């Protein structure tokens, strides 16, 4: 136990702990929305497309997270545009943006002279190397997400549940949809450092699946998802440290095991 407490004396661990808290809240809430609305696949497309931006940033030498944000938002808008305006089937639009982003990322990284040492940490995450400025960005995102959901909770819920009815009631459905898709893009990108592009979808879906075992109430689902995300992330962090295995993978593994235990446990209660 003292070994655990001692860990908190390390600067890198304090940062990792804060990153875990911020990631859990943002992914818990946004993931709860994504799962309820069944837009997990769209979120996957946005996430993977952001790799193109990371590649471009490596090539041109600017902040990779900025590149990722640009590509994620572009993909989010692109998917909407392809589906609504160009009338391409939604799953096909998603696949096009998903693979286009990845392809561009690979091309850009290949064109980048020399070795790109951080590439792995963007693909698979490394919560132990999160920087101060990234933590500030994560904190800001949490404030925005919590503020948005607290202020507009009923409207978000009603639009998510029955978009058509919300339109007949006169709610600005399109505006909300665009705002939330941007929040999804930002959540994905700012949490890339925690579990990486390849694995971020897990933080948006597995804690929510666990939470959904215990509640069918939207508000409680969002809160409980954040709690489960935190338990999984922090346990994964310890496991990763003591077993010396990659943190992103350890976190996902913990989340899945936790879901399995809860699911099986529920059958016996």
């Amino acid at each position, binding site marked *: 136990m003292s070994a655990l407490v001692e860990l908190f004396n390390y600067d890198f661990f304090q940062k990792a702990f804060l990153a875990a808290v911020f990631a859990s809240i943002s992914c818990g809430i946004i993931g709860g929305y994504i799962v309820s609305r069944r837009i997990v696949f769209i979120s996957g497309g946005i996430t993977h497309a952001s790799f193109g931006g990371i590649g471009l940033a490596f090539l041109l030498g600017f902040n990779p997270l900025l590149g990722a944000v640009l590509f994620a938002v572009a993909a989010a808008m692109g998917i909407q545009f392809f589906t609504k305006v160009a009338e391409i089937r939604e799953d096909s639009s998603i696949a096009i943006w998903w693979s286009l982003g990845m392809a561009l990322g690979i091309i850009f990284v290949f064109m980048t002279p020399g070795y790109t040492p951080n590439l792995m940490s963007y693909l698979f995450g490394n919560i132990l190397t999160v920087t101060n400025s990234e933590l500030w960005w994560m904190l800001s995102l949490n404030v925005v997400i919590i503020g948005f959901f607290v202020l507009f909770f009923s409207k978000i*819920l009603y639009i998510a*549940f029955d978009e*058509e*009815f919300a*339109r*007949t009631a*006169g709610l600005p459905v399109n505006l909300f949809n665009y705002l939330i898709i941007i929040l999804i893009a930002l959540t994905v990108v700012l949490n890339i450092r925690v579990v990486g592009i390849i694995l971020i979808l897990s933080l948006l879906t597995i804690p929510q699946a666990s939470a959904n075992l215990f509640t*069918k*109430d*939207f508000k409680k689902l969002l809160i409980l998802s954040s709690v489960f995300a935190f338990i999984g992330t922090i346990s994964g962090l310890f496991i990763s440290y003591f077993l010396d295995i990659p943190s992103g993978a350890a976190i996902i593994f913990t989340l899945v095991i936790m879901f399995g235990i809860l699911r099986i446990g529920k059958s016996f209660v």
Partner: protein
Amino acid sequence: MEQLLKIENLTFGYDKQPVLENVNLEVHEKDFLGVIGPNGGGKTTLLKVILGLVKPDKGKVTFSEDLHKRKQPIGYLPQVRYIDRKFPITVLDVVLSGAIMQNKRRSKAEIKATAEKLLDDMGLLSISRKAIGELSGGQMQRVFLCRALISDPKLLILDEPDTFVDNRFEGELYEKLLQLNKEIAIILVSHDVGTISSHVKTIACVNKHLHYHPSNQISEEQLESYNCPIQVISHGQIPHTVLKHHH
């Protein structure tokens, strides 16, 4: 009777294929209009135009002053088959969602009290905390009727409310509608002409064109002359017009 809405020379289509062509319709206070027609004939599209969900290609829809001023003038009950039953939302929240644009005019407590009163009337108060997915089709339909009514609408629009309803509730539903019709106008879409003609006051046959029939008695010949072939379903317990058999 005051006119609530008027549709003039309406044409609407998807991909330039007209679904509705040159449609005219007036709905007055306390009307009870049954809308019938074959599947794909444009019934639901007509509702969407009235609800403002799609914009007509040609023609216009005008609402009365009174209807226009209200925040939520039209109560709408969609087809429950399009509802995501796994969505994490409680029965009470579904009903409350019907009053979403009224939070400036009524207090939260007042809206909640209205919701509970409506649920109580439908015999659903004891399950108001349940998730929507735990309900039977008939119960769900009643919950959505509560949602449509909480905004105190002048006009109620129901899209095939009898699809999932058990026979027992079907009678109750139409009784409820007749009662509501003393105060508000109702537009009811159904594929079941038998049920329709025993409850509504007037009928509109929609099959690309709209034929207005100013009574609730409609014969097969008339339906054919309106180019409006529909399945005739008869129900034992409910009084209905007996129509000739299909060939």
